[in-house]
């Protein structure tokens, strides 16, 4: 991919991001009634605080001025005060983000390491019992509601068998001084193997729940694309060379078959970030998703605004990244 083309693609993101910010901005502006009163609801605030909120939202200025102010502030990471937390929104989000990122990463890893081998196996042993099982499994995976599956896991492993904790990110005894804020890494960096396993036992159920639909989708994509690739002439030619089965499968087939899998995985990572509101709530996971749900309930609009903007930007960026990845993996696509 040439640099010029890369820059062009990057520039194409600008209108998309602009559109997203308009929508996010409109969230508050178009809310009927007095947004400040709605945000306050039945909380007790001093008149000074109410005045500060009004000033923050700039409700006294014309709409276009307010939009550009919002945009300017947003670019600088200023989303106003989380009045509920009595701190800047951006600080609250920063604090919660690592938990969400860690959960999403583990879910992504679980999805990749189960979906790809299963998809390949299902394709190689097409129409076998294993293939059918995988098909049914993936159908369930995409259609089971996350909260239901999560509760099922909790009931089985936490309540009934009592081998995994019900909720939270880590036990009190295992709290450590953060380095990267990703607990699985930090515990190891601090040499606390016990704490690592504690963190692992907390993350495993939410990560599986979060990663399940993605696992199902990636498995289907891998299977379909593997079957498609195996029919190609170049596979026949590779076989005609007398190459070993492993060479034909992994060097010739998988390399091509994974191209769609990787792109879909990159795009789906966006929905992983969005999908964790439910999972984080079910498992009491102290991440951004749960924060957003809580904020919606207390009408903490500035925080919801910032979070939605964050989700949208991440999603757009992941799509962009998926495109780039596709062209890197696929030498045929000349950009």
């Amino acid at each position, binding site marked *: 991919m040439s640099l010029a083309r890369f820059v062009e693609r990057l520039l194409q993101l600008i209108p998309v991001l602009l559109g997203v910010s308009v929508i996010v901005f409109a969230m508050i502006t178009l809310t009927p009634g007095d947004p400040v009163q709605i945000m306050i609801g039945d909380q007790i605030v001093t008149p000074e605080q109410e005045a500060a909120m009004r000033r923050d939202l700039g409700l006294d200025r014309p709409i276009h001025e307010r939009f550009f102010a919002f945009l300017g502030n947003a670019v600088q990471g200023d989303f106003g005060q989380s009045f509920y937390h009595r701190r800047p929104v951006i600080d609250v989000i920063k604090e919660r983000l690592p938990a969400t990122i860690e959960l999403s990463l583990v879910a992504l890893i679980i999805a990749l390491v189960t979906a790809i081998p299963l998809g390949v196996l299902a394709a190689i042993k097409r129409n076998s019992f294993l293939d059918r099982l995988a098909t049914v499994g993936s159908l369930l995976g995409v259609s089971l509601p996350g909260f239901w599956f999560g509760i099922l896991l909790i009931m089985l492993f936490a309540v009934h068998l009592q081998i995994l904790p019900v909720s939270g990110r880590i036990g009190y005894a295992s709290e450590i001084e953060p380095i990267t804020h990703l607990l699985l890494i930090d515990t190891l960096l601090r040499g606390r193997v016990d704490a690592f396993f504690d963190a692992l036992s907390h993350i495993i159920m939410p990560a599986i729940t979060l990663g399940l639909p993605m696992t199902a989708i990636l498995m289907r994509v891998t299977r379909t694309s593997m079957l498609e690739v195996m029919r190609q002439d170049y596979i026949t030619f590779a076989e005609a*060379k007398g190459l070993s089965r492993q060479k034909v499968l992994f060097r010739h087939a998988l390399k091509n078959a994974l191209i769609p899998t990787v792109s879909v995985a990159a795009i789906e990572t966006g929905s992983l970030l969005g999908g964790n509101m439910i999972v984080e709530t079910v498992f009491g996971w102290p991440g951004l998703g749960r924060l957003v749900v809580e904020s919606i309930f207390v009408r903490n609009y500035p925080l919801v605004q910032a979070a939605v903007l964050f989700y949208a930007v991440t999603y757009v960026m992941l799509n962009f990244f998926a495109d780039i990845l596709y062209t890197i993996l696929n*030498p045929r696509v000349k950009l």
Partner: protein
Amino acid sequence: MSAPTDKTLLQVEGLRTVFETRDGTVCAVDGVDVIVERGECLGVVGESGSGKSVTFNSVMGLVRSPGRIEAGRIMFEGRDLRALNQTEMRAVRGRDIAMTMQDAMTALNPALTVGEQIAEMLEAHDKGLPSGRNARRRAIRAHSVKMLGLVGIASPETRLGQYPHEFSGGMRQRIMIAIALASMPKLLIADEPTTALDVTIQAQVLELITDTRAKLGMSVVLITHDLGVVAEHCDRVMVMYAGQVVEQGRTADVIMRPKHPYTKGLLGSLPRLSLRGQRIEPIEGQVPELIDLPAQCRFYSRCRERGPECLKNIEMRDAGNGQTARCVRVQKELAT
């Protein structure tokens, strides 16, 4: 068909390859016999869909589901290839019998460089490579460069690192030939190797195949639509129609004195002595569906010489001089 001799490299007998489809069982190859002698070049001609590719894919053991070889013996150097297990068959493929595919645009892996695709052929068959790691890599590289040069690819050193999409169709065809010849096989099956090439390159590629043939004593099966290529390069020719061999014999005999009405049709009114570049002439009518064929001559509906005696299964008949044809009218001529 002539009897096998110790000079026989490949002998296929009664090959039957079928494909299960929604409409029924397609019998793509039905009772085909082939003999390839050591060092000779056998031309294979026939309209599209007559079973040329399927026949030789069967020889390679590369018929995929929904297709399968239903009957027949495939003897190569005295061994029945159908009786070999997967590992044994892999040792035959590439090393003893190499193949180039019909469609050069799709036969090379888009995700691997040309160099990698040549090298793996050499690695798999390891004919006289040095044992040290680096020496080995250098030998493979040198050999790959040589092969690309031989098929007429300019600046092969840089070309090795490029991907198939960076080459034209004709170049990919030649790369495929370079790969097939790299392991110095005993038999080369070339499925329409010159179709995508312009005349100069075509001559160059055929010359390369013929040279290698002479040098290694390699045998060649040349599947082609070009009767000029057959006339110039093939010792014998085999004509296929609707999954059967309808005529075979020495090239000169078949071209000068075709016995089967289908062969006569193919040759049409071509000026016999300047066949170069002549494509097979279209014959009126269509190839029959290869499902549940009635017991009669398969060419019946299109034949100018048909009669009631053609409405039964027709065997190959000896026309003398080793020429045989699947037609009731064929009579043995006195050897001249």
